[in-house]
């Protein structure tokens, strides 16, 4: 059976979320009505429905006794005078007995749900004694329950309810399911939707491509990207299903209108894909994800947030941190410069007072160590000739005017007879000059990390991906050129930390660059090798495993 979605779509009643998760109600052509109140509101439609009708009757919740009795009395009249067969269900045996006695009609317990949560320790308590439904996780909370979906919660924890609320207790019992109940036919291939925002650069996309690859490889997952990034083409070329979306800014739309629209679209996609997990790589969970996931028939999926650290110290993101209370898991991709992290997320992965489980992984790189090409092969592949070559990779072009630095780089390189190879970001819309060089590596060389051995030195911006690729997968001189922008991570701190460790040199902010660049070029000329950099670790695999464990914690 299937609940009449339009009726319950906006309801504050949590039961439709569970009914949509019920194997017997998952088909089509029949109708299940989630309460006697809904039945009263839509009786002519029930009478006129072509197909089987079941109505789930509810014990008294927070409503007055008078209201509950009156609704049942009206309902009884409607049912008694109806000629169409209607199956009356209750959520538990006790509820069925009680309601049957109240109505003097036959009420049977609904088939139980299979058990959702596989563990024994996690508990979530529901209550609506103080108004709208709230939940607590141990000592944490209360959190407004409307932002969660019971079908998701029941896979994360044992649901408990206020014992004074008979209806809520029935819902909790029903949500917890029974071990003996027939498990719903499960898709052996988990479906994972990854949402990537339209960030600056390729950080989110690159990180999630690494994780997605692992999920596909080690968990046989079907991964679908919901991408606001213009780098959707890269995702698609990596072999992932991709839904390209537009932000309100792209469309020039009113933010609220866009939000409504995006919620509808995302909810529709969830209904179609029925994912087991939704992952967003961002600083915060977007509202449309939360709202869509809270809808009936949309929200069995667990929700994870991949949130990198190293926020700039002046960004006081307390509002963004609230997302921790909405996700099941928050993973911070590790940062080699974490000891220099001065942002608000510093150390949050150690917290235990959040609704979400918190974790930190090793640094994530899209390129694995075993994917690196030997120097000769890499040079050949890039068409580089003899002599010294330095890669210049300064990221996207929208945030900084690089021209003063470029001039110094070109002059220093010419002095040392070093050829410059310019990496252009796949997102770059314009050629930032490239100082007349004809050696430009564009989108076709994404990702560039496998070819690093081709270069005798690298000048790079200090974004998460570049930094960790260079520090873990490369052993030649690196000059870090941090960009400080409020939308970016704290690149300066990262660069300073790396310099302090002897891993790289960096251009200090506001100081003349010429001497540093000349010295760096001299190192390249001398063929200097840096041996102190940390070993590569597979952060993507660690995140994929954490997501896998999240999936496995519930049915």
């Amino acid at each position, binding site marked *: 059976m299937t609940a009449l979605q339009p009726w319950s779509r906006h309801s504050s009643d949590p039961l439709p979320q569970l009914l949509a998760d019920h194997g017997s109600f998952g088909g089509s052509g029949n109708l299940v009505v989630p309460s006697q109140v809904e039945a009263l509101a839509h009786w002519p439609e029930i009478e006129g429905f072509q197909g089987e009708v079941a109505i789930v009757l509810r014990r008294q919740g927070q*409503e007055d006794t008078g209201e509950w009795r009156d609704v049942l009395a009206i309902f009884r009249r409607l049912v008694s005078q109806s000629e169409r067969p209607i199956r009356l269900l209750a959520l538990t045996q006790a509820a069925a007995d009680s309601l049957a006695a109240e109505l003097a009609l036959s009420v049977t317990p609904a088939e139980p749900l299979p058990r959702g949560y596989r563990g024994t320790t996690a508990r979530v308590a529901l209550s609506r004694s103080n108004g709208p439904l709230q939940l607590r996780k141990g000592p944490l909370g209360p959190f407004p329950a409307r932002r969660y979906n019971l079908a998701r919660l029941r896979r994360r924890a044992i649901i408990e309810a206020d014992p004074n609320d008979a209806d809520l207790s029935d819902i909790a019992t029903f949500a917890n399911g029974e071990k003996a109940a027939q498990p719903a036919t499960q898709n052996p291939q988990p479906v994972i939707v990854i949402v990537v925002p339209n960030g600056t650069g390729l950080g989110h996309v690159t990180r999630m491509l690494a994780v997605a690859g692992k999920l596909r490889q080690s968990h046989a997952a079907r991964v679908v990207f919901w991408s606001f990034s213009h780098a959707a083409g890269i995702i698609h070329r990596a072999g992932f299903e991709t839904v390209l979306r537009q932000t309100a800014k792209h469309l020039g739309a*009113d933010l609220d209108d866009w939000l409504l629209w995006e919620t509808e679209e995302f909810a529709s996609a969830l209904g179609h894909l029925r994912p087991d997990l939704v992952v967003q790589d961002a600083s915060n969970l977007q509202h449309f994800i939360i709202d869509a996931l809270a809808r009936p028939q949309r929200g069995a999926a667990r929700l994870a947030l991949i949130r990198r650290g190293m926020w700039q110290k002046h960004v006081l993101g307390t509002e963004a941190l609230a997302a921790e209370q909405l996700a099941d898991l928050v993973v911070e991709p590790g940062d080699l410069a974490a000891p220099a992290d001065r942002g608000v997320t510093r150390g949050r992965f150690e917290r235990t007072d959040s609704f979400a489980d918190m974790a930190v992984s090793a640094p994530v790189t899209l390129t694995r160590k075993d994917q690196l090409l030997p120097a000769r092969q890499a040079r050949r592949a890039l068409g580089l000739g003899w002599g010294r070559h330095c890669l210049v990779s300064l990221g996207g072009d929208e945030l900084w005017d690089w021209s003063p630095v470029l001039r110094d780089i070109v002059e220093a390189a010419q002095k040392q007879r070093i050829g410059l190879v310019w990496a252009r970001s796949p997102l770059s819309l314009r050629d930032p000059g490239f100082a007349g060089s004809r050696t430009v590596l564009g989108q076709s060389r994404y990702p560039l990390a496998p070819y690093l051995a081709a270069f005798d030195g690298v000048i790079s911006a200090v974004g998460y991906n570049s930094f960790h690729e260079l520090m873990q997968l490369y052993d030649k001189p690196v000059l870090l050129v941090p960009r400080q922008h409020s939308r970016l991570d704290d690149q300066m701190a990262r660069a300073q930390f790396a310099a302090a460790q002897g891993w790289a040199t960096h251009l200090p902010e506001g100081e003349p660059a010429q001497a540093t660049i000349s010295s760096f070029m001299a190192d390249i000329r001398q063929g200097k090798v840096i041996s102190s950099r940390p070993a590569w670790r597979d952060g993507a695999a660690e995140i994929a495993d954490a997501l896998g464990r999240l999936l496995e914690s519930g049915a």
Partner: protein
Amino acid sequence: MPENLPHQIDLNCPIAADVGHFSPNLEGQLSVVLRHLGFHTVVGAGPTEECPNKMRSTVGAGVIRRELIELCSEGRVHAAYARLMESGFEAAHHPSLWELLERRAMEMGDAPLAHELRRELLAADVAGTEIVLHEARHEIEHGRLRTARTYLEHAFGPLPKVTEARILLGAALAPDERDRAIELLGAAENGSEADMLWAIDALRGMGELRRAMTLCVAARKRYPQNGSFSNRLGWLAESVRDFGTAREIAKSQLGGDSDTKAQALNRLVRLSQRTGDNDAALAFAADLLRHDTGPLQKLRLARILRLPGLIEAVTAALPEQFWSGQLDPVEAEKIATYLLDEGQVGLVLFLWQAGLPIALHEKRLLERHGFGREGDKGLPTNMAEAISIKSPDLLFPLFPERRGTAVPAGWAPALRLGDRILIVNSVLAAGGAERQFLMVARALVEAGIQPDRVHAALFSIEGDRGHDHFEGALRATGIQVHDLSRGNLADLGLPERERDCIALMPARLRSDVLALLGLARDLRPAVIHGWQDRAAIASGLVSQFLQTPRTVLSMRNMRPKKRGENADWISRSAYQAILAEPSVRITANAQEGARDYEDWLQLDVAEVSILANAVDQTVFRPRPTPRQQGEAVRLLGVFRLTENKRPLLWLETVAALEANHGIKTVPQILGTGPLEGQIRARAAELGLDHLRLDPPVNDPSEAYRQSDALLLMSSVEGTPNVILEAQACGLPVAACRVGGVAEALYVNGPGGGLLLDAETSVQEAAARIAAWLPGTINTPDDARIDFIHRRYSTRALARSLLGLYGAPT
């Protein structure tokens, strides 16, 4: 009018010519707009000395007439207007042209233009009778009764012979000259359908419900096809508590179209509820829900039956219905207005968020309150959030900027000589609380307060509704009595913030506050004393608006919800916001009620003080002679025949006294109510053929004096006046221990009363009464009477009141 513009604009003079010629249509519209702005326009009257460029009309009236007809037939009524003005044929000399255009404007539904044309004719004093009648009707519909009256009396004299003029003049006179209005409206009996409707509505507005009903009955006979008369008759019958007629009318409408049937079913639900027949109410509700009716009627039903879950379920489905075309925009707007009137602001915002149409003025109102896409409060995105946003809760605190002002708790200036006191109650119906309201007025006057300083305001004292039971007695105290239903609320000239705040209140609270605010602003009392929940909340809010020095709120015997009345609009948050003001005091008439309100409003213990009832000792005098021994015991019950008075338990207990304990009784009940039939039947079953079941009387003192004991078996009570009154007359009382009964009953001493358990059985009650009664009824009355005189006297009440009002001791 803008200050920097001339007050007169000549559309033909060079100023206008400088900006080019107006098209006739534009000119006409411009003229109307300018007139609305307060300019006097001069158009097309030909060249004058002041404006020599003007062209004098060169065509005759007949040509203009044809042109007007032609333009109107093309639907260009404004172009016709412009042509008429351009022609120079002024209303004073060519009224027929202006009348012609007025008729066409009316036919085309252009009321503003028709009104404009009529004003020209009236100003020129050439308006025909039809024009006067049209304009008078227009003015009455827009609340300008005095203007309508001037037109009508000028054209038809003080006693018009034309029926329609008589009716309209009657309607226009209604607020000011009641008797004359009634006389004039009497002509409607022989009038047209429209006359009768006008007269019925005018009489209804005056509170002359029975006259309106009589006219409705006549109109239904003459115009049986016109459903408006049935609708009105049903409403009127219900208002005067003629539930039989109201039910009959509603049932007769069940065969009507879908909406009529749904309305009739809703009315039957309400009528059944009012008569205590819950089963019938639920049966009609099921009929309505089975019927394929629109969401508005379902919402009304949910409101009548107090089913908030159903309101949510119906509202949650509206977006889908709207976007699938099942709900048209006009209906959607009506629903939003209805929900706003019910205080369901969050649900309206939810509909707004979902894209349903909301009336522009309502949207603006909500925006000014910070809601909407651009507002700091935004719009709720889901139902759980939406249902928690309710008015009046969201309005508080009304004046946050006043918070934190250093005023010591309980501070208020002392009452000065000459200060006014405004006491407020809902109505003056025949009830215990209303009697106590009267006692307040008496106590104040007896305490030496000049009667002209005391003002009593009532939301209604309509006789036909039974709201005037104590009106005569109240007026006899010499105080000023104000019927708030007669106030003109059209324009109180409130600041925008206050106006918006009131506009966002639930409709019922809104009208109460507006009505009281108008009076209180004129009187500027030093004390406002609100009596019972409805008046208390309105009084408290008005006090906040006016910063009245002292406010007293006198509660009933228990929180609204416990009383089981349709009182869910009485907001706890409103009480709490009002009580946060240091100048506000709250009272109850018994400890039980005080504790209940403290619990409900989360107040400290003893924050609700006791303002005990007073018994009128001039009415409730002691019995002259004690009963004769050996006679049958005259057992009296004075209560309404409803569930919570447990009249069947009363009967069965009396029967058991006779059957099991051999006590001969003469049982008498004074009361009426929905259980009357059941009581008669049960009495017959029990063999209590000698039971006297009499209707309630205004003054039950004689009944007390002719009885031997009072028996009260209620399951719910506050401080029952009947217990106080009976004891004041010397009667011993047996009653169940509920509410404030124990406090009001003299128990410890000779001839003391009997307290029965709240959940007593028949047998237990009968046994205890049988043991108590013989000794008690033969004991002298003095102790009981003295108990009442000490605790429940007018003097004690006055002392408490003056303390609350800050009168110097």
